[in-house]
């Protein structure tokens, strides 16, 4: 019976909708600000976004106050790629290790990678996986910096480093 009650509770918990609130983002933008606390670690972090029930990043909700990083739900242009890497770091790590995938393709698009450079771009990141993702609890700030360095050191890809 106890086991059944447990299952029942699980079922009820499933029925309970996953919704709650994160606080509005305030202050200026930058690493260490509330928005960019910097995600850490290489395993997928979907749960980190959702265990407190929040549906995605509520700081970016239409209702939130305007912050230094975002204006009414939209990320300031100079933080666009950084925000993308921060929010998709684990998917990006997966794609880079495989040399393909939607997250990597999206990042390339964001950075403006030309069709002709795409293969080289993917390969460069893949070959330098261990440099970019240097440890198991690497944070997104260092991932971003390392990616820039890796691209800068390859002559034909160096201009993408500035876009990152």
């Amino acid at each position: 019976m106890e086991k059944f009650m447990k299952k029942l509770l699980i079922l009820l918990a499933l029925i309970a909708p996953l919704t709650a609130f994160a606080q509005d983002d305030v202050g200026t933008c930058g690493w260490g600000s509330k928005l960019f606390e910097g995600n850490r670690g290489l395993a997928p972090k979907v749960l980190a976004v959702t265990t407190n029930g929040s549906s995605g990043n509520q700081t970016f909700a239409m209702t939130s106050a305007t912050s230094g990083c975002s204006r009414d739900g939209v990320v300031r242009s100079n933080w666009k790629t950084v925000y993308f890497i921060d929010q998709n770091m684990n998917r990006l790590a997966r794609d880079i290790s495989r040399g393909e995938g939607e997250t990597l393709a999206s990042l390339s698009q964001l950075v403006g990678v030309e069709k002709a450079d795409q293969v080289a771009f993917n390969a460069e990141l893949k070959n330098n996986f261990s440099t970019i993702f240097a440890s198991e609890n690497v944070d997104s700030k260092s991932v971003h910096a390392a990616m820039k360095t890796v691209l800068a050191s390859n002559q034909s890809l160096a201009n993408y480093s500035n876009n990152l």
Partner: protein
Amino acid sequence: MSCSLSRLTAGFFLHFVLVFGAVAESSLTPEIKELAKDPQWLALLHYKSNTLTPGYQSFIDTPEFFLAEDGARNPENELAATVKKFESEGIKLSCRYPARLNLIQAKLKLFLDRKVADCPEFDEWQGLIAAKGVTLIFPASFLNNPASAFGHTFLRLDQDPKNSKADYYSYSINFSAHTFGEPGLIYAFKGIFGFYNGYFKVAPYFELVKRYSDLEKRDIWEYRLDFKQKEIDLLVQHLWELRNINFNYYYFDENCSYHLLGLIDVLRPSLKLREKFNNWVIPSDTLKAIAKNKDLVLAKIFRPSLSSKFNAREASTPPKLKVIAKERILKPEAGEKEIATLSLEDKITTLDLAYDYLDYLVVGDKIPADKSDPLAFKLLNERSSLGQSSPELLVPKQTDPLDSHASQRVAYGGLYQDKKYYQSFDLRLAYHDLLDSQVGFIPGSQINFMDFNFLLDSQQDFSLNRATIVDLVSLSPGNYFLKPLSWALHTGFQREEVNFSDQTKLVYKNELYLGRSTKLNEGNQVYLLGGVANKINTYFENNQATGGGVKFGWLGYAKSFNYLTEINYNRYFFGDNHTGLKYGSKLNFPLNKDWNFRLEIAREKDYQETFNSYLMNLYYYF
């Protein structure tokens, strides 16, 4: 639903206030009167014409949104006040209402010197959203998460409609309720009766993909729509007006999909989408209403969920490698040694599957972070050191929800039960059962909601035979890695024999079964569920019977018909002591999208009596 009732009554009383209380503004010129009737103006203010009385009522529940005192109910006064205040308060106010300004400039030729560039905040925002296309997004239902049962809809503003790589970081607009994480029952109550505020939220599309596709395991359908840049610009201007603007949220009618129709009406008022729905809004129905407009849908894209991708990868991996991949996660050291012995291609296959399995465990909260981080780090490092890219993963495409049957259903048929003939009439308000045509649905799921059956016997006596409130079934066959729970939940009334009386009464029944399902082959699965059952009627000894039982069934989908054979045995030992046994088969032929034909035979034993029933039904979906 009660929520539309409250709207109606409110509208009725307000009508008197309007007729006797409102003072006509002197600035009501003929041009203003004309534009106030324009569908575009009515769409921008989210007005709905009252059902019983003349006049309008806006869905917006934030008073500050309106510039006239009675603006929520009076499109003319609101337009007049807008023009007047734009004049007196200058550019600052029109920067808060860029869509209104746009319309007034176009139709009334006023304020023509005002430019978007005068509104730097809005201008920056609009530039960052960079909307060049609109895509309708439909996360399909996934029954193991009942909150998602009816699907969901939202919009994506594509930054580069011709290039799907830009989709992931384009912005989406999603209407949702602020529920403050309140638990299920409170959510249900407040949601149904309109206690929550709802807002349109702008967020990068990847945020929503993470939520719907990864966490909630829902396949997503994307429908690129054909709108002109002018229409899209007006929508973005209007979204700026909707910042911090509240629409009361009602689960059944004024829900996400309903308000989304209101936004599409802003894009193109002539579609008149919202007025096609009244008191019962199911997301897949709104999807069809939108797509019904010829040439509006440019392309369809299927985005499989994380779990669909994992299942596809699992299905395409040789059994030997599955064993190693699982071991690599659960017993890393042993797994590592095994992988070292494989060929390059097998290594890649195994590592990719292992990582996706880890991903699945993390998303399901089945592995702690201090274990998953190092594991992921090693796996990905190992993978990156292997030269080649992974082969493309082919995920079997689900059938398009646009082609699915409608959610309401009626049936007419003949029943021969316990040696008596009846005519049988059915009405179901929503949504889909195990045997309905599976086009556009995930096989093995059922959501019957408000399903009624009436019988007319040879003496012309009409009686209610069944009134199902909710009947949910989720049969998810597992695989080598995943063993999901299958379950069935029922609550409703059913006419049946009570307490050796040889009489039938309407019995209130509650049942919950949990168990497992296994795939036999493509299209066939068997399941075994066990659970509790409870029946309530004053004719029962102690007014009720409670017990437990098992269900065993075989469900199959063939090309032109679906079939189900099930045995259900219940033993009631609290209250009225008795057993119930029922077994039978059902065979359903989808004739086309709107018509199905079904045969059912069953043998039933309640108390001492055993009887057979034969049913032949014709279903119509609408």
